[in-house]
């Protein structure tokens, strides 16, 4: 099937998604960031999906590494050229999963020619430095400690903004500043005007959040960054490590 320059469509095997636990894969357009989320916990899938949607990402959520590979077309021996190109801008995966761990999934993605440049983010409930190092050495873009917060996802999203404008789905180059940021440096400045600049505003207290039972937060809140009650990303280097991805140098 002929493809023009940068236009990519989801493969017909995307139809499999309907049977794979009712995942949603809405039609994509090139300017939208599409994230593949992998987590065996349904609760966590729903939360990460919401976090990503709030930051204007399209989300496909799957419940295992195998399903992720299936979705990406990496689950068989066919040369990727035979498969329709899939537009995936980021993969975010849990570390501890039965069957295939997030680390194993990361390795497989980095071994593939079609997807090795796609940033892979690992999430884990355990802050184990050896684990973090191992993932980063294997080429993980970032490592998030669970429970994941909106500020974490916003930071990831801002990071991707510069890539989305490129025309060809999978041949994405990470911006130079992302590659050269080291572990001890704070996260790179946002590429767009971000709402993460709320240094002057304290996190919202439960009182403020819960004054409106069923609606969103208080409208006359001055703080731009109403959607997060977590501290700004600069703190806690252990929690939010942003490191070089050696594989992409």
């Amino acid at each position, binding site marked *: 099937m002929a493809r023009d320059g940068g236009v990519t469509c989801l493969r017909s095997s995307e139809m499999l998604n309907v049977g794979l636990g009712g995942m949603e894969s809405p039609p994509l357009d090139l300017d939208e960031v599409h994230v593949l989320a992998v987590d065996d916990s*349904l609760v966590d899938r729903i939360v990460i999906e*919401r976090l990503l949607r709030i930051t204007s990402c399209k989300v496909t959520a799957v419940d295992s590494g195998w399903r992720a590979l299936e979705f990406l077309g990496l689950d068989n021996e066919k040369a990727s050229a035979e498969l329709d190109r899939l537009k995936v801008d980021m993969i975010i995966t849990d570390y*501890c999963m039965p069957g295939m761990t997030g680390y194993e999934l990361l390795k497989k993605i980095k071994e593939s020619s079609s997807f090795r440049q796609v940033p892979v983010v690992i999430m884990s*409930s355990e802050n184990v430095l050896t684990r973090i190092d191992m993932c980063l050495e294997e080429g993980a873009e970032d490592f998030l400690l669970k429970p994941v917060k*909106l500020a974490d996802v916003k930071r990831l999203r801002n990071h991707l903004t510069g890539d989305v404008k490129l025309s060809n789905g999978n041949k994405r180059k990470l911006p130079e500043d992302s590659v050269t940021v080291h572990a001890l440096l704070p996260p790179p400045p946002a590429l767009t005007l971000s709402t993460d600049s709320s240094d002057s505003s304290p996190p919202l207290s439960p*009182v403020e959040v*819960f004054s409106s*039972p*069923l609606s969103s937060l208080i*409208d006359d809140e001055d703080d731009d960054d109403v959607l997060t009650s977590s501290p700004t990303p600069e703190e806690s280097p252990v929690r939010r490590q942003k490191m070089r991805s050696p594989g992409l140098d």
Partner: protein
Amino acid sequence: MDSHVAQLQMQYRNYILSLYQQGFLDDQFTELKSLQDDGSPDFVAEVLSLFFDDCVKLVGNMARALDQTGTVDFSQVGANVHQLKGSSSSVGAKRVKGLCINFKELCEAKNYEGCVRCLQQVDIEYKTLKAKLQDMFNVSVIIVHMNPVSVWDDFNKIILGKE
């Protein structure tokens, strides 16, 4: 009518604060609440509902695993505890999460009695939380029902003292 609504609003607010103060909820719950908006008004309820389903399933798995007298597979129990710890952490169910941390250690120590006791506590704890959150949702529905038009204005005025 306003004073009734105001009173209910105050009770609602205090009730929620007490859940935090008593350690039932932590800031992850606040985070989830902040992800809810008019476009997704049921987000918190949906996530919590899935969490409680998870609790039923995982507690059941653990009970069965511990029921295998003489041949208890503690790693199996531990795997379920790990999952419960993860989802309780994701919704801000602080006490359940805390129990899971202890539970994990008991599994690693293959402490049968300890595990059985801990499982009972987990069972009580998630059910207690469910009942409390159900009360909270019920009250919030009543408040909205009583004064649907200007309820948010009233909140801002009364609770935050803003005009």
